[in-house]
């Protein structure tokens, strides 16, 4: 397998003592990474706000955990879509010196980093850490439909129904891998399914 340079490389959260504000957006799966990264940095925690995706069916008893973080503010959102709305607003109002931290599954990181990039926040202005779901976001190149949490290739497109091979080619602007018709040269003959989330 050749090294493919377009695959996103996620990092490890490490709060910068120089940043004046810290904006954290994460999924529940990323909470552990946030706890680890922000442990023992009181002065930073007092300048940190957390925006957490908590699905409605998620068990309660988490409030102690959130209180223990000692952040300036904690906001909860029911879905990725709703937290992304807040992310857009936060970035448009923030000042230089604000650092963005993202933690969660691949599909969440894909969408959040591509939104941040569209707002001019990229490179060393954003830190990421991958936790939880390893399913990938895939765009069907034929109908342009997006699918979240794809774990196998080929996969049937949710939108147009074609069988897609997931190419190891990633677009940061779209936050997705490319899915291309798997049986164009031999209709009905599909390659062996393989996991792509490993």
């Amino acid at each position, binding site marked *: 397998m050749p090294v493919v340079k377009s695959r996103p490389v996620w990092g490890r959260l490490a709060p*910068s003592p*120089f*940043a*004046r504000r810290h904006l954290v957006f994460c999924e529940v799966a990323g909470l552990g990474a946030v706890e680890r990264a922000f442990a023992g940095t009181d002065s930073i925690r007092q300048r940190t706000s957390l925006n957490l995706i908590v699905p409605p069916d998620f068990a309660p008893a988490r409030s102690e955990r959130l209180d223990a973080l000692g952040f300036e503010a904690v906001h909860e959102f029911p879905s990725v879509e709703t937290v992304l709305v807040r992310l857009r607003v936060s*970035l*448009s109002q*923030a*000042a*230089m*010196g*604000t*650092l963005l931290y993202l933690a969660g599954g691949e599909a969440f990181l894909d969408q959040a980093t591509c939104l941040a990039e569209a*707002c*001019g*926040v*990229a*490179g*060393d*202005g954003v830190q990421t850490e991958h936790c939880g779901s390893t399913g990938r976001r895939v765009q069907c190149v034929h109908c342009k439909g997006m699918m979240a949490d794809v774990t196998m290739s080929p996969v049937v497109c949710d939108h147009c129904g074609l069988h897609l091979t997931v190419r190891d080619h990633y677009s940061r602007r779209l936050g997705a891998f490319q899915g291309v018709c798997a049986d164009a040269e031999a209709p009905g003959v599909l390659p062996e399914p393989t996991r792509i989330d490993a």
Partner: protein
Amino acid sequence: MSGETIAVRVVAAEAITPTIKRLRMVARDGARLPPYSAGSHTVLTMASGERVIRNAYSLLGSTLAGGAYEVAVLRAPRSRGGSAFVHDHVGEGHELTLSVPINLFPLNRRARHHVLVAGGIGITPIGAMADELAKVNASFELHYAVRNEARGAFCGDLAGRYGERVRLYVSERQERLHVHDILMRQPLGTHLYVCGPEGMIGNVLADARALGWPETSLHAERFLAAAGGAPFALRLAKSGVATTVGEDQTLLEAIEAAGIEAPFSCRGGVCGECELPVVSADGEIDHRDHYLSAEEKAAGCKIMPCVSRLRGRELVLDL
């Protein structure tokens, strides 16, 4: 000569301050000079008797559409000849050769807002940036620090053109440029550009980093005025040439004076074009460029002859 060149004639030479001379140049064959982007520089080739002097200067932005190029040349206190030659000998009608414009200090066009900071003669690329940003209606502010208004080139011009977007800081009037305060209140997605004396650039960048600005948002014109140093012997292994690099001469100039063609572009230690392989060094290489990494400098296998030199007896290059 490396790259495309343009033969020009000086059509106006004006002292705009006691130490800054502005040259306006047009193509000798009457052709339109190519347009360029803000932050571009050109390398001027001047013949001073036997000696050929080549210096890089930022192109001013005020003549984008005029078919002429302008540069502003500060008389350097310890000039190795270039700026003194311009001040003492270059006037109307003088013929020079220019490189095509090259941009090593470009604007980031995706920025939400641009903060431009200039000190002294550093206004030349920064003023061009203001021109270009104003033209495309981009959001910017310009902070310009000068010793006194008479010595600050372009003060009146800039204020007239950009109004409240320009702040002037005159040190003789005890006006201080507090970069820290300026950087405190910028929207996320802002980019910072600074050009001026080395010390000023260092301070501005240090302030920005201390306030949590990411590296990718920081841009500085790191042009070095090539300085001299102790003379040393030079041998070019492939060409079989042996010569001496004089104390007022750069290594690149000594190579050129020996009649050997060597590649170059910025002549300021930035672009990497003139990189040469070192065969041996009897002494310590004095790396002064901003191009080679710390590891490359430590390894001592490469040198940027436009600014770097040897502290020692003899340098042998694979050229």
